[in-house]
């Protein structure tokens, strides 16, 4: 029996809204981009008004935005995955998505697909770490 790590009640995706009329950029529901140009990290951030984690209730289809930040505060989105070892580890293991993380200059907000929301303050050490996508 495969025991889920978290019970998936929601699909999750990232969303970037612009203040200059640029069309909203959206990620895929609970799925990584297939190529670099579709990754959030390669979308432009000038003129960014807000960054959101959008969630869709798997039962009702209702979409909500439980997590957002101002554009000037946005750093990046991260997928959170878990990979089992002990079964089917023939070659590389691509785990299953359990959460989407919104990273701001000061905080990380993690929305798990079971509906749990966790916020963490970025440590001084963490703030020194530069992600390649934006160099910040």
């Amino acid at each position: 029996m495969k025991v889920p790590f978290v019970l998936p009640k929601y699909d999750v995706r990232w969303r970037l809204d612009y203040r200059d009329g640029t069309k909203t950029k959206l990620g895929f529901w609970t799925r990584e981009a297939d190529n670099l140009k579709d990754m959030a990290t390669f979308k432009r951030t000038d003129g960014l008004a807000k960054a959101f984690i959008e969630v869709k209730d798997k039962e009702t289809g209702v979409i909500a935005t439980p997590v957002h930040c101002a554009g000037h505060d946005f750093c990046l989105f991260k997928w959170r995955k878990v990979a089992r070892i002990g079964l089917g580890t023939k070659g590389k293991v691509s785990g299953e998505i359990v959460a989407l993380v919104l990273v701001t200059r000061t905080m990380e907000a993690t929305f798990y697909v079971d509906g749990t929301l966790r916020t963490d303050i970025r440590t001084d050490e963490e703030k020194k770490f530069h992600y390649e996508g934006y160099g910040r």
Partner: protein
Amino acid sequence: MTVSILISETMAGAAFNDSLAGGSSGIDWGQASNGGYTPLTSQAANTGKKSLWVKHDATVDPTTDNKVFIQQYSGTYGGADSAANDFTTFKNKGYASNSSTSNNTDGLYSGLVVEMDYDISVASQFDPARIGTQVFIFGDGVGSPQDGIDLTSAFPIITDSMVFNNGGSPVLATTPVAGKIGKSGDTVLGDNSASYWRFYLESAAITGGIMQTDLVWAYSFTA
């Protein structure tokens, strides 16, 4: 982009693919005797261990928030009891572990244990004095009621396990950061996490037979 991880016994080796009881594949930890551990070479010399090398194929950023924990076995169960009971047994053995000797000569070491200090001396490997800092027992109660048994209580991968693959030779990462594994070729963070593993069996263990569990690696990567 999808980011996959590869877990192997050597730095450049293929992924684990041992045949397991029940028909699934993964990591075969071997057989432990009472008051010993597995894999075991020489108990007196504190030798014998399973090495796990973890790397990934991300091309944009390092992976972050790397953590490890155990869960109920999800393969086709081939053990002596049940997957659920085995998971409980793993947790209970970790919780009961109370040894003061790395090689279990006091017979009180029990459970699945990971040593995250890559360049620690052989004599000091799995030293119970470093439990909670560099040595971690799945199911113990050091940091919370029971550690390393779910996503919440997972053990973060520490800086002492970060290694750079320098043309086939492992070199310590120059400025590693806890939980972060660099892209291939990253000398600063290191592009591999290297750790050592044992399953200890206490002297007083009564029930024998094959036990099975899932080892779970959690990680984050740029979306």
